Every structure is written in structure tokens, then in C-alpha cells.
């Protein structure tokens, strides 16, 4: 079994929303726990899918791992080294091994730089390979992401969505990354282009031995390319396991709700009416539920006659191992 490339332990990221000076002094600022203690690991050459509704904290997880946003507490171990306590000078060697593919195609590329300059900058940021070496490396990258050499003189706005995405991937590979955080890499793309990018990511993983944290709300793509999947709800992982078993035999009611909410939803075993009607509140960090966060939307909670254990603040369900590489945080997991 290959070793873990990334190990996240009890990661927390709290944002505080200021209500003004007086509240701050009285300690009454609103704290929004965007990530509220999550742990997982990713092995080499493995893809972990991270799914959940918008606002559940998926992107914040990616950014925290990358060190793009300071974390509140917890550990992010890359190759066994805790990145969150490293001084900047010792962080750099790790930074080149982990890169991010950003969700927003247009914001990620400098509009005033041509593709060649964008890639040149990435190639030369850690190494000084000389002009010839740079050109060779750029050609190699273009080849890897399947981009025409004629595009090197284009500005980002002259590229199509798929091409911009390819440039973003090439830039991440330029520094020699082994681990990529792919934040919704297909969501901004046309349907026929999405498959191109998914296939490219899978090919790169096979050829270069990359590991991915694949953040997406497209459950089908996640199910197809991930080895394991974590489902997030309001800043916590509620279920985690192998991709196929999560999709086909969800244990957490929220997981089942997500998968059966696909428009062409399959009929999962024992879920006649997925979710039921009127159970859709929105995500709300500011008025957190006591006990289980999902209780207000949970069909199981409702069907069981609102058991007190679900809303008791002292018994918030923990992510427990239920065997077969499966973890679930629920008092009444589905069978």
C-alpha cells in the first residue's frame, strides 16, 4: 500500500464576522465555523472527491491545505511534515509539490500576459533552466495538456474555456507538482468540453502519478474518477468511504439525499421518496443546530419522531468507523 501524501488532522477554519467595536469588546462577534474539525488522508496516486452543496466549506478546505488561507487549528501533513507550522522559507519546497487548479477560469490567469509568459513564469519560479530549457519545458507541458503550440502567443481572453483550463493545469504541472487540488475544474465548462478535461486529469494521474483532491458538486464525475469520496455538510465530513459504496449504499441520510437529488436520479434501495417535500432549508452557519447539524432537514429524524439524541448539544454525532473503510457521522445510519 502506498503511503499517504497528504494527511489532514482535525482541521478548523473559523471566520469571524465583526458586528462592530462594542460587540468585539464584549466578545459577541459572530464566529462562522467554515471548517469545523475535519480529518482525512490521501495516498499517493489516489483521488479523493469532496462533495457537498455550495457554502458547505469545500473550497475553504482546498485553500487551507494549500496554505492560501491561514487555518484556525489542526494539522496539514504533507509527506509527514506539518505545513501549518513551517516558516515560509521551509514551506517553499513543499509548495512546488502541491498546486491548485482554481475554479474561476478567468480570475486565475493574468489577462495581460500571453500564454507563453504565464508558463515561463511558472517554469522559472523555482529553477533557472536557461532559455532553451524553458522552451523545451514549455513544449513538454503543452504536449502533456494537449494544447496547440500556436496558442502560446494568445492572451487568456482569446482562449476558449477548455483551453484556459488546460493552461491552468499546465501551470500547475510546470513546477513539478505531485499533488493537485482541483476546485470545480469542470463546472465553468461546456458539456462537451467537460469530458475532455476529466479525461486529461485521469491521463495525467496515470502518466505522472499525481494525487488529487477533487472538489466538485458534479456527483457523477466525482463517482467516476475518485477512489474515495468525502461528503461535507456545514463544515464537517458526514460520511467518507470508497466511491462506489458511497454512491450505491449511502449510510448517512444526507448522502442519500444528495445522490438521489440528481435530476436523472437513480432509485436507491429503500428510498421511495428521496428527502420528501418541504425539507429543504438552506445552509445556515450563523444559527447552528444543536446536536446534529443536519437534523432540521433529515428525513430519518422526522420519520423516527424527532428523537432527542439528534438535537442534544452534548451528543453531536461523531465520524465513526463502521468497517469496510467506511466512516459515518449519524446516530441512525441507514442500512
Amino acid at each position: 500500500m502506498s503511503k499517504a501524501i497528504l494527511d489532514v488532522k482535525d482541521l478548523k477554519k473559523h471566520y469571524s464576522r465583526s458586528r462592530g467595536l462594542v460587540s468585539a469588546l464584549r466578545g459577541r462577534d459572530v464566529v462562522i465555523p467554515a471548517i469545523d474539525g475535519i480529518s482525512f488522508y490521501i495516498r499517493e496516486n489516489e483521488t479523493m472527491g469532496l462533495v457537498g452543496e455550495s457554502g458547505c466549506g469545500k473550497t475553504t478546505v482546498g485553500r487551507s491545505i494549500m496554505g492560501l488561507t491561514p487555518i484556525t487549528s489542526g494539522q496539514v501533513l504533507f509527506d509527514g511534515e506539518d505545513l501549518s507550522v513551517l516558516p515560509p522559507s521551509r514551506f517553499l519546497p513543499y509548495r512546488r509539490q502541491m498546486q491548485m487548479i482554481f475554479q474561476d477560469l478567468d480570475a486565475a490567469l493574468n489577462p495581460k500576459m500571453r500564454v507563453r509568459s504565464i508558463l515561463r513564469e511558472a517554469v522559472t519560479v523555482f529553477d533557472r533552466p536557461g532559455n532553451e530549457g524553458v522552451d523545451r519545458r514549455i513544449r513538454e507541458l503543452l504536449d502533456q495538456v494537449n494544447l496547440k503550440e500556436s496558442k502560446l502567443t494568445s492572451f487568456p481572453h482569446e482562449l476558449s474555456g477548455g483551453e484556459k483550463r488546460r493552461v491552468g493545469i499546465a501551470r500547475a504541472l510546470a513546477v513539478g507538482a505531485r499533488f493537485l487540488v482541483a476546485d470545480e475544474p469542470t463546472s465553468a465548462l461546456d458539456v462537451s468540453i467537460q469530458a475532455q478535461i476529466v479525461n486529461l486529469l485521469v491521463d495525467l494521474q496515470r502518466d505522472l502519478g499525481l494525487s488529487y483532491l477533487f472538489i466538485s458538486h458534479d456527483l457523477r464525475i466525482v463517482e467516476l474518477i475518485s477512489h474515495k469520496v468525502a461528503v461535507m455538510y456545514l463544515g464537517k465530513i458526514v460520511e467518507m468511504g470508497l466511491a462506489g459504496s458511497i454512491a450505491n449504499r449511502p449510510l448517512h441520510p444526507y448522502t442519500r439525499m444528495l445522490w438521489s437529488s440528481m435530476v436523472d436520479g437513480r432509485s436507491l434501495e429503500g428510498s421511495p421518496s428521496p428527502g420528501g417535500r418541504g425539507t429543504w432549508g438552506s445552509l445556515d452557519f450563523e444559527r447552528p443546530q444543536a446536536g446534529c447539524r443536519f437534523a432540521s432537514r433529515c428525513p430519518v429524524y422526522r420519520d423516527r419522531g424527532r428523537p432527542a439524541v439528534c438535537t442534544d448539544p452534548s451528543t453531536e454525532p461523531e465520524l465513526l468507523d463502521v468497517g469496510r473503510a467506511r466512516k459515518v457521522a449519524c446516530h441512525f445510519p441507514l442500512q
Partner: protein
Amino acid sequence: MAVEPVLTIEDLRTYFYSRSKRAFIRSVDGVGLQVRRGETLGIVGESGSGKSVTALSVIGLIDAEPGVITGRVGFRVNGTEWSLLPSIGDHVSLAEEDGRIVEVVKDNRGWRRKVDRLMHGVRGREISMIFQNPRVSLNPFVTIGSQVAESVLLNTGIRNRREAAEKARYWLEQVRMDSPGLRFAQYPGDLSGGMCQRAMIAMALSSEPSLLIADEPTTGLDSTIQSKIVELLDDLKKAVGVTTVLISHDINVVARLSDSVAVMYGGTVLEYGPADRVLSPDFLPKHPYVEALLESIPSERHIKDGLLPRAIEGEVLDTVNAPRGCRFFDRCHRITNGIEEKCRDLEPDLAEISAGHQMRCWLHIG
């Protein structure tokens, strides 16, 4: 079928003139569609395929004034017939030089006035529209209830404010807004995206239109909310029976809600027919583009076989330099030696291959 068509679009062409490119962008290039009473027509296509511009042309809401807009849009309700498409010819003069168009001069205000006169009494009242981004489409400074009530006052016979408010509440209930009484007095900013979309749908339905145009009604919403909106539209279709044009890039949404489907690519319709035929991977024959498109979406089948979706290579067509022949020529995987020349040089017509099923491909119309 004996049911009369509510909307008939014939050979619609909407071109925009691009100054920097000195050429026409042929966003919609000869589209013909029909929507019958009670039917839902789905228009699927990738971005730039012209699906939204088709809808906006019908309802006279094109923002950047087109250089050319021709064709015929007939709209028929209870025996009254409107011809909705104004001719822009009187308001545009083309400056030519050696047979090349070098400048397009448009009388935008005159054209706008003409469109607005033509649309008076139709837009909003007979034809309603739901837009993609509900938050942007609602006025942030007016409560949800007032916005729906305003639509009732403007577009129905009701003139009394209290009655209008009551009607507005009725429609908010119809779209299954949770606690409609509370939402009535709230502002769009207080509502989630899904709730805003429900409010938009309530507004669109409140005038009891003869035709509803829904442009990407589920795009940008969470997948859990999406499925709820689709469920709502499905139920409303059964309960209210409103004739609908549904525009979406999401094939699953269109397949679920539509009776007939038009697949657009590069400004033209490539395949047009009953939804269960066009969007079912098992029904043959298929247009190569539709076949590839269905194959490129991860589905149950891929997951079962552990296969990755097959990508359509190449890029979406740019409608400035549309090719002479078939628009899908560059990306087509089904071209055989026998027809290659024809595919490259000659654009096939949208021809009937079986009753009510049309296709634009040399493979099938030979």
C-alpha cells in the same frame, strides 16, 4: 396532431455585427421550431449555440441591437394571431465597399420603439420569461410580494391592490414557497437562490401566460435545489398545463421535462423531434453530434462499466467563421470517405427522417 401551434418560428436569423472583427456573428442562422398548446419544447445546446438568442429574438429582448434579424415568428392564441418579428431592415443601413460590409449604421432607438410597440400586450402578459439568474432578475429593493403583485396588476384584469396581493400570495403558494406569508414581506436578499427562482416562477405564471419561456431555470443552483425546481416545473406542467419553451444546457433537465427537443449547434438546429427519441442513447438513428454529446456526459452506464465518458474533441464552433458545409464537420467522428466532400462543402438541410423527427446530417438524408 390536430393541436394548433402556439408559437411558430420560421427561418429565424439573428446576426450581430462585430466592429472589431468586421463581420457578422451569426448567432441564430435559420432556425425553425413549433410549439403546440400544452407542450414543452426543450432547446439544448452548448454555450454559443444560439439557444438564448433564439428566445430573446422571439420576445424582442435582444440587448445589443442585431445587425440583421429576419424570419417569421407567429404567435397564436384563441384565434388571435400576432407576427412578433419586426423587420430591422428599415433601421439598418449597410455601408459596402467592394462587396464587403465595412460599416453597419443602426437606428437603435427607432428599432427599439418599433419592437416595444409590437410587444405591447404580449410580452409579460401572453409570453412570460424566467431567466437564469433569479437574484439579478428581481429588484433588490422591493419585497417579493410587491413584485409578484405588480406583475398581477400590470398583466391581468385585476386592478384592485388588495386583490392583487391576494393573487400574489396564491401564486407563491402554487410554487411551494415555504411559509409564503412570511416570504411575502421579505426582500430578495433574504431568500436563498432556490426561493428567488420560485418567486420568479410565481411572477411569470401570475399573468397566466399562454407561453412560458424558461432560460436555464436551474443553472447556478445547487444540485439539491435544482432537482426541487425541476420537480416543481414538472408538477406545474401537469397542474397548470402551461405551454413552455425550456432552454438549458443540462440534458438531464431537458430530458425530464420536455415533450419535444431541438438540439442546437452553431446557430442551427441539428436534430429536432420527440424528446424520448432524440435524447435516448438507444434510439437510432442519431445525429453524430447528439450521439457524441450523450456519450460525453457521465451516466449510469459509464459508472456500471467503469468507463470514462468519451470526449468530443475540438472546440465549440465560433459563429463568425462558420464553415461552408456541415457545422459539426471538424468534430464529427462519423464522416465516411463517401460523403466527406459533401459534408465539407455543403450544408445539409434539416430533413424529416421519420414522422416528426428531423435531422441535419448527410449520413441520414443522403
